[in-house]
Every structure is written in C-alpha cells, then in structure tokens.
C-alpha cells in the first residue's frame, strides 16, 4: 500500500488539493494513493482531479521556483497518464486560448507523460563528468553540414551530466533531430538546456516540439498551425508509422500541388526509410523523423535518424547479399548500401530502400545524405549521373538519412521502377493477366 501514513487518513479531493499546495514536499506514493482513492469513490473524480491539477499547473508557472515546478510537473504528468484523468485534463485545456502563451506551453507540456529517464533514476554521484557545451552558433545543420554538426557533437565527453546547447540564428530541423537523438541515446532528457537561444529559434524549437518529443514515448505528430512542418516525431518498432508517412506527404499540399505520382513516390520513399530503421537499426532507443517545407525556396527537407547499430555493423553482423571482405572504411559500406539489392540480411530484406532514395532524389535534382559511423555520403545529380561526395567526421552511432527535395521538379519513382534491371535467368513465369 503506497504511503497511507504520509496521507494521514485523508482520502478525498480536498486532501489531494492540500497535498498539491506543498510542491516542495510532494510524496509520489501519497499522490498516487489519493488519485486512486478518489477515482474509486467519486464518479466525477477525473474531472475534479483534472481541474485541480490544471489550476495547480497554472499556479506553478506563475509562482513556483524551478525545482518546485519540476516536482509538481512530474506528479501531474504521472496522474495525466491515467486515461480518464487525461481526457478530463484535455477537456479543461480547450478554453485556454485566452491564457498567455508561456502558461499554455507549460500546461501542455505537463500533459505529456514521461518515463523516468535513466540518468534521472540514477543517484547523481554515480554519474561522473560535468557540464559540457555544444556550440552550434556557426553551424546551421543543413544536409551538407551534417559532418560539421557530428564533429561538434563528437567533441563532447560522453560522461557528461548536463549539456548546454548554444544555437545560432537558425538551425535546420535536420540538425535538431540529430541533437535530439544524441540527447535521447545518452539519457540526457531533462539534463540539457538551450542557453542564450535567439528568440526565433526558441519559437522554432517549440514549433517542432523538441522538448515534448524527447519526453513523449508515443508518436506525436506536430500540430503545426501553418501545416508546413512535421515536428520531431518518434519512430519505434511498436507503433504504426503510416500516419507519420501520410502526414509528411500532406504538408506538401501547403505550398505545392503535387501530382498523384509525386505523392505516391513520396509515400514510398518515406515508408522505405522508416522500414530501414525498423528492420536494420536494432536501436536501444526510438529514432526520430522530422520534415519541413521551405516555402521561399520551394524545397522540402526530411530527416530520419536512429541510434542503432549503423550500416557497417549491420552488414558485418548480418548475412549480406554482397561480398564485404574488401570493404575497409565506413564510406565503402555506405557506397554499397545505396546499390540495388545490396542488403545486410537476406531474409525479409530486399535492398531497395536506399537505392530508390538516392536514384529518385538525384533525378529530382535534390540532395541526399547518408551518415553512419565516421562517414557521410552526400549524393546529387551532375551531368545526368549520381555523384557522391564523402565527408569523414567523428563517429555517429546509428544512421542518419536526410534528403532535400526540389518541389519544382517531379519525383520520378516510376521511371526508376521501369529501369530496374532484372537478371533474365531469374525471370519467373509471368503472373500477370
């Protein structure tokens, strides 16, 4: 029985209110006990609890010091994970249009149930290292700058306790997705801060739901009011990803009038990218997807990042469909990975994804980047051929796939399908009517 003694016999909503007024002395056992008791005894308890928490959350934003606020926030999130309370909580959020923005953001963030990050669960003295700073004031994190970003990340001690991040005037969503992945993989959720962040970037971080996506283990698609971005969205093996794929394609409509062919092509490319994460990465934590339309340039950027085993280890630990004995550097493995039918595992893999992506993006006159280990391959079309530039950098554990699509041009997936070579000796009896 959780801490009945701490509650001192109180078992109703009033007791809960009393408890919440002392955020410095909150006891999780007492809180859970009171919530459970209230839910069992009063029919409208979820509504009452939600109203109570809502009021306290607003007070917290206005009156409490950060430590008290964090403490209260943790308890409210825990209660909001109970579906009935959560529904009531969401209902009470509807009239919040009149609230100041900071309060609204704070209360909305409280609604996100979070698991206790590993770093938070460990006693502080077990974590050695100190505060580190990731200085990105001169790196925008564009597709062609990923190697610079990874080099900057590579300079940070992996034994740090707290990360300060300095951003410049603008950092691309692709760069932010990479940073988020690194934070998640190193159990730094709740242990990082953007310092001296320029105001437009602070708004952009809110828009792409940087903090919320790090805390929320379920897939949450950004409710961007302008509908030109998909905020940081988690990719994991257990959740369906069709909704993410379709939403990314939907934002195309905001600035372009895509043909059914282009929409279909984009659906295929994104789903193949996500399948790669599902089937190859074997990652200890979720990956991330992010997408953004750049209306002035009429371009669209999509980035998927994971903290899995990476391309080289996937080939070396699997049953590759190609000989790999002669491959020496990470970049050699990346060059193989973009070839047709080149896959690290023979069963339930067919090695189309990265091949299609590089072919279609090059023909679209866009840019394609594949990062894994100590190399990044940047592909583009030059004189009707795909060229790859290779950049070397600090090691990245996992894989990053980032593309820039030119919305002026088509996505000629059908053309690539039509030109796909087939070994005549392997042609099967024709199935088609």
């Amino acid at each position, binding site marked *: 029985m959780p801490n009945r003694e701490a509650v001192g016999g109180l078992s109703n909503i009033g007791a809960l209110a009393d408890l919440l007024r002392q955020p410095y002395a909150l006891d999780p056992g007492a809180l859970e006990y009171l919530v459970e008791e209230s839910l069992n005894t009063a029919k409208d308890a979820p509504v009452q609890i939600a109203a109570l928490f809502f009021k306290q959350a607003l007070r917290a934003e206005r009156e409490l010091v950060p430590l008290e606020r964090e403490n209260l926030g943790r308890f409210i999130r825990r209660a909001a994970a109970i579906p009935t309370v959560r529904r009531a909580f969401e209902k009470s959020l509807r009239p919040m249009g009149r609230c100041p923005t900071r309060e609204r953001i704070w209360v909305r963030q409280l609604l996100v149930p979070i698991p206790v990050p590993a770093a938070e669960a460990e006693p502080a003295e077990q974590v050695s290292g100190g505060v580190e700073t990731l200085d990105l004031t001169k790196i925008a994190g564009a597709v062609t700058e990923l190697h610079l970003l990874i080099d900057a990340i590579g300079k940070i001690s992996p034994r740090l306790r707290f990360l300060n991040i300095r951003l410049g005037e603008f950092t691309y969503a692709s760069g932010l997705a990479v940073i988020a992945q690194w934070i998640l993989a190193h159990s730094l959720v709740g242990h990082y801060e953007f310092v001296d962040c320029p105001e437009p970037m602070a708004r952009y971080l809110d828009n792409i739901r940087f903090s919320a996506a790090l805390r929320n283990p379920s897939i949450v698609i950004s409710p961007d009011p302008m509908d030109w971005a998909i905020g940081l969205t988690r990719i994991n093996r257990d959740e369906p990803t069709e909704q993410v794929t379709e939403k990314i394609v939907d934002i195309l409509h905001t600035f372009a009038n895509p043909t*059914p062919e282009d929409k279909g092509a984009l659906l295929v490319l994104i*789903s*193949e990218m996500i399948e790669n994460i599902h089937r190859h990465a074997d990652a200890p934590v979720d990956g991330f997807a992010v997408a953004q339309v750049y209306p002035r340039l009429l371009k669209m950027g999509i980035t998927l990042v994971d903290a899995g085993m990476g391309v080289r280890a996937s080939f070396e630990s699997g049953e590759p*469909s190609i000989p790999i004995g002669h491959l020496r550097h990470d970049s050699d493995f990346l060059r193989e990975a973009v070839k047709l039918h080149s896959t690290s595992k023979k069963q339930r893999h*067919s090695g*189309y*994804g990265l091949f299609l992506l590089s072919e279609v993006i090059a023909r679209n006159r866009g840019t394609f980047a594949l990062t894994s280990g100590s190399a990044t391959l940047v592909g583009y079309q030059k004189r009707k051929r795909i060229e790859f530039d290779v950049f070397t950098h600090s090691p990245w554990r996992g894989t990053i796939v980032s593309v820039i699509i030119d919305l002026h041009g088509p996505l000629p997936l059908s053309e690539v399908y039509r030109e796909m070579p087939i*070994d005549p000796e392997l042609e099967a009896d*024709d*199935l088609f009517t």
Partner: protein
Amino acid sequence: MTSSPRAVKLVALAGSTSLLTRTQGAALREQVLELLEGEPSVEIDMSGVNALSPSFADELFGGLQTSFGRATASRIRVSCARVEWRRLIRSALAHRRAIDGQLSKDGRG
C-alpha cells in the same frame, strides 16, 4: 473446363490505397494464403492502388512465391495496369528467387 480464379481487390483487402510496409504485405499474404486453402487460384486485382513500395511487393508477392515455388503462376494471377509496378513485382520475384536459391543451397529455407 477450368474455372476462372477468385478475384480479390487488394485495396479492399488492405483497407488502404497505399501499399507500403512489410507489415501490410505480410498481413495480406496471410489473407491470400487463407483464400487459397479453399480456391484453386486467386487473381489479385491492383486497381485503385495509389502507391506500391518494394518492401510491400517483396513481402506479398515474393512471400507467395516462396510458399508456392514453381506452382506460383498456376495459383496466383495478378491484374495490374501500371507497367512500372509490373516491373517492380517482377524484380522483387527475381530477387526472391535468387535469395531462395541461395538459402536452399545453404541447406536452409
């Protein structure tokens, strides 16, 4: 006299016009295999499909080929108007045939 194959519309079976993931492909393959328990052959109708991915094609068509081997063409017919998708399915089948051949050489599969 041979009876015409039982026709199944892939879009209706999938509940989606986008055929993209291996999970979708595997679920549809199971449904087709179930139908084939009571039918000599099935015609898979691809009309209404808006997007077809290689992973899906490998999982559904390649998977059916692995199940039926040389008898695939007598059990499965595919009605598909788009030339590029026919090419993709042929490519997936050829690749699957190569992999299945390698696996059986290795004594597996």
